[in-house]
């Protein structure tokens, strides 16, 4: 079982032009702990929507790799989106689910993945051709290569330790989070659109 922040650090190493969307809660704290940047879009709400935000972003920016990092609870809430993404099949979209089998933000209640639900199999069943399991930092490095090679859509499932780490909070004004990524991508013209 991997440490979630070591996993994120490995996947985000030398990130180059990578855009990252993080599901609300621990995944958002993780990417912020590695380093907050305008190329990060950490969510504070919209549970179940992370991968669809990633899809819209990937379609709008086909030359940039887009990675969605989220948890098992958030992914389960919007799991039908995997079918939508398989249908659209953007090469530049990758999804990493950090599966600790718990709702860690709400007191550690167990999720369905604790009881046999396999999100990688669900992704495969949805039609996502490239699914993989990450069990080591070496696996994480291979996944990172696939993300940057834009060989997607690719879905990776990593079992991680269920422990609460220190909170590292990103800005919580959503208008800033949106505007800074738009400016990062579009320049000052973003604010005149």
């Amino acid at each position, binding site marked *: 079982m991997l440490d979630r922040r070591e996993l994120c650090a490995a996947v985000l190493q030398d990130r180059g032009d990578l855009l990252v*969307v993080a599901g609300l809660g621990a995944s958002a704290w993780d990417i912020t702990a590695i380093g907050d940047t305008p190329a990060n*879009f950490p969510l*504070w*709400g*919209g*549970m*179940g*929507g*992370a991968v*669809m*935000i*990633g*899809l*819209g*972003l*990937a*379609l*709008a*920016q086909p030359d940039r790799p887009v990675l969605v990092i989220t948890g098992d609870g958030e992914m389960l809430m*919007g799991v*039908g*989106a995997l*079918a*939508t993404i398989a*249908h*659209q099949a953007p090469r530049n979209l990758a999804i990493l689910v950090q599966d600790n089998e718990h709702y860690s933000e709400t007191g550690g209640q167990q999720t369905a993945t604790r009881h046999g639900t396999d999100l990688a199999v669900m992704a495969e069943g949805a039609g996502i051709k490239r699914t993989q399991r990450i069990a080591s930092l070496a696996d994480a490095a291979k996944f990172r290569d696939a993300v940057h090679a834009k060989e997607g859509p690719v879905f990776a499932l990593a079992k991680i330790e269920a422990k609460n780490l220190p909170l590292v909070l990103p800005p919580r004004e*959503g*208008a800033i*989070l*949106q505007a800074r*990524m*738009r400016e990062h*991508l*579009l320049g000052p013209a*973003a604010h005149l*659109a």
Partner: protein
Amino acid sequence: MESAPAATADWPDQIYDLLKRYDIRQVALVPDAGHARLIRRCLADNDLRVVTCTTEEEGVALMQGAWLGGQRSVLLMQSSGVGNCINMLSLGTIHRCPMPMLVTMRGDFGEFNPAQIPMGQATQATLEAMGTIVHRADTDADLLPTVEATLKLAFNTFRPTATLIGQRLLGAKTFGKD
């Protein structure tokens, strides 16, 4: 026959022209018969990305991602789908994201099916409760100016907006019992 405009009605083509004029590039939808002709036009256009969603809230999240990446989008759905969007509409308020929605009504003027009434009658209140500016169009003459206002309000003032296309305009599904 689903609740759908007469084959000769050309307003779906005019809405398509509006979407092009406002530089819409991604069209999220869960199909509805009232939108069938517009959907066909969008699918035939290689400059529009049509994203068929498994539930309407996916479309709300897609609009957030499209705008993040610098593209304009729209969500087409039936009124029943509005109920599926409620919490996801938070994204528009949280981030000040333009989210125009074109909603074909059921459970509205002349409805036959009792099951359509609860969500149909709650559609406008639901959207407004989540911060969406809502306009209704119940006549042919109203429709295009209302859709255009919905697009303008979304992209000029950065928020969720909706046009509800009424059943008076669409025609009510009658299950052969009219």
